[in-house]
């Protein structure tokens, strides 16, 4: 059960990353820091300013939306016509900037963020699960169902999808491509904040946690086949469950070594993941 819930968080964290990748082909290695910042902002608002948790959540969402907008203007837009490696290195630069800002603002010690539903347990049909884990399942389901409706049913969602599929064609159809790309970054950062709020009560928040998040999210994406949303969810759940099983039955010291080995094995054996990324390349 705890494997499934942590897997859901990996999938949520990966979703924001994937959104940007699918829309503009940019790989944002600072996404782990965005998730961490979402959690830290909530911590700062609720513990530091004494705001109620829901207010801290809204504040964090708003701040992260703004951060996403800023991020796209600074670390993506000026480099949109350069090789992908340029954007990747810039995002690594952003990740150092954000991680060390967190270190300067909140220090290296782990801090804890409360859950919306407290620490209690729920008994249902003979199984006992912590209430926070139940919340994670509900939110994850809501986000993934919500996104599929958003992208297929609403006008703005369709415009976003058109931009992701073919920027030139979308521009000819009257879609404001620049704005859609900025909006994608905003959505990605908002999703990061949600993931941060779900993750923080489960783990402690510390600046180094961002690296773990991005790596796990990335592995989930790779397992699912780069680009596929259902694949991502399956990949996240698979990774979460495997980790918990390995940690409890075999070794906890080498848990993270194992997730990297999974990554390497998947890349060697199934370079397109279990669900397959459509690879098309033009000379």
């Amino acid at each position, binding site marked *: 059960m705890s494997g499934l819930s942590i897997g859901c968080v990996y999938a949520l964290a990966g979703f924001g990353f994937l959104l940007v990748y699918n829309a503009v082909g940019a*790989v944002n*290695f600072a996404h782990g820091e965005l998730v961490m910042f979402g959690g830290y902002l909530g911590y700062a608002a609720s513990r530091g300013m004494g705001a109620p948790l829901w207010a801290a959540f809204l504040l964090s969402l708003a701040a992260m939306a703004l951060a996403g907008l800023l991020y796209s203007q*600074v*670390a993506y837009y*000026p*480099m949109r016509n*350069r*090789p*992908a*490696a*340029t*954007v*990747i*290195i*810039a995002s*690594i*630069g*952003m*990740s*150092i*900037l*954000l*991680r*060390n*800002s967190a*270190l*300067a603002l909140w220090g290296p010690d782990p801090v804890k963020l409360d859950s919306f539903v407290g620490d209690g347990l729920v008994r249902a049909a003979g199984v006992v699960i912590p209430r926070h884990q139940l919340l994670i399942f509900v939110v994850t389901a809501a986000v993934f169902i919500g996104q599929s409706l958003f992208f297929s049913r609403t006008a703005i969602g369709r415009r976003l999808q058109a931009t992701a599929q073919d920027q030139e064609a979308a521009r000819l159809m009257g879609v404001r491509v620049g704005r859609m790309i900025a909006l994608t970054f905003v959505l990605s950062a908002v999703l990061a904040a949600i993931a941060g709020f779900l993750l923080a009560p489960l783990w402690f928040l510390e600046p180094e946690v961002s*690296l773990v998040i991005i*790596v796990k999210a*990335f*592995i989930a994406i*790779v397992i699912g086949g*780069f680009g596929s949303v259902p694949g991502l969810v399956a990949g996240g759940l698979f990774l979460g469950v495997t980790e918990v099983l390995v940690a409890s039955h075999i070794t906890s*010291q*080498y848990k*993270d*070594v194992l997730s*990297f*080995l999974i*990554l*390497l094995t998947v*890349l*060697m054996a199934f*370079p397109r993941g279990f669900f397959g990324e459509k690879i098309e*390349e033009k*000379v």
Partner: protein
Amino acid sequence: MSMVAGKGKAAWAAAGCVAAALVLPLVCGESRYYMNVLNLAGIFTILTYSLNLIHGYLGLISIGQAGFFALGAYISTGLNMGLHLGYIPSLVAGGMAAAAAGVLIGFPAARVGGHYFVLVSLGFGEIVRLIILNWKQVTHGTNGINGIPSPTIGPWVFASRFSFYYLILCFVVLAVLATRSLRRSKYGRSMLALKSAELAACVMGVNPLTNKVINLAMAGFLAGTAGGLYASYIGSISPEVFSVDLSVDVLTMTVVGGSGTLAGPIIGAVFLVLLKEWLRFLREFYMILYGAGIVLVMIFMPYGIVGLARRALNRGGIPSFKSQI
């Protein structure tokens, strides 16, 4: 004509650089502090040449150079202290072990594209670090290995910072020569073809697997050797040195200097090592500026200091400079 003139100029410039490097310790040899900074810059230069191969010739981004560096450091130290193999054989063996690791990650690298390799390399670096951290019987975990002897080659002992400088200089020159001869070989040209258009290069008969594996083995060897030099210079090694931060430092040095160029790694490594020393008073804010600096470099000077210099020189009317990549 201009090619010949360009070559002559480059040879003079290279000779001038080596001469300057030879007399540098005589100028600032009095200061133990600056000798230390120079030696560290030398070790980082070799590491940066290693990433320069991967990024400059294959276009791949590695944030796992610390893994090669650590392998070289631990294996050469183990062979030298445990089995008394002698300094140079141990150093070479450490480099070879790192080269073998390079071959290992060359296989997934050949099958998947750019952004995957970032994570493959990160994963590799972290696996090495975690194993060093947890395999306490061999590596002593967080305590590390202390009392590593100074390099001894035949009758010579490189115990002082002054003498060590010349040892490192030899290896830096070897790294430069290796990069230069790769650039002029069939393999170097094949790698650059893969970098600019992989599919087109494959159609022309360039084998991506062979070339990527050779490249990563060479890069692994350079970084592993740098690791062995580092261990014998500092005298102790422990896992926290070989973190992602080190790999990111190396990446920054590569892109700031000018990736894929011959002079870029030296310029980038020396510049950033000095910058870190001068800005030491900023403490944790240094790393924030560092991150911002990387983003700014990517926006305003994607080809690094060398690219900037080239552009400035081209405006001054020296077009042949460009042919000397």
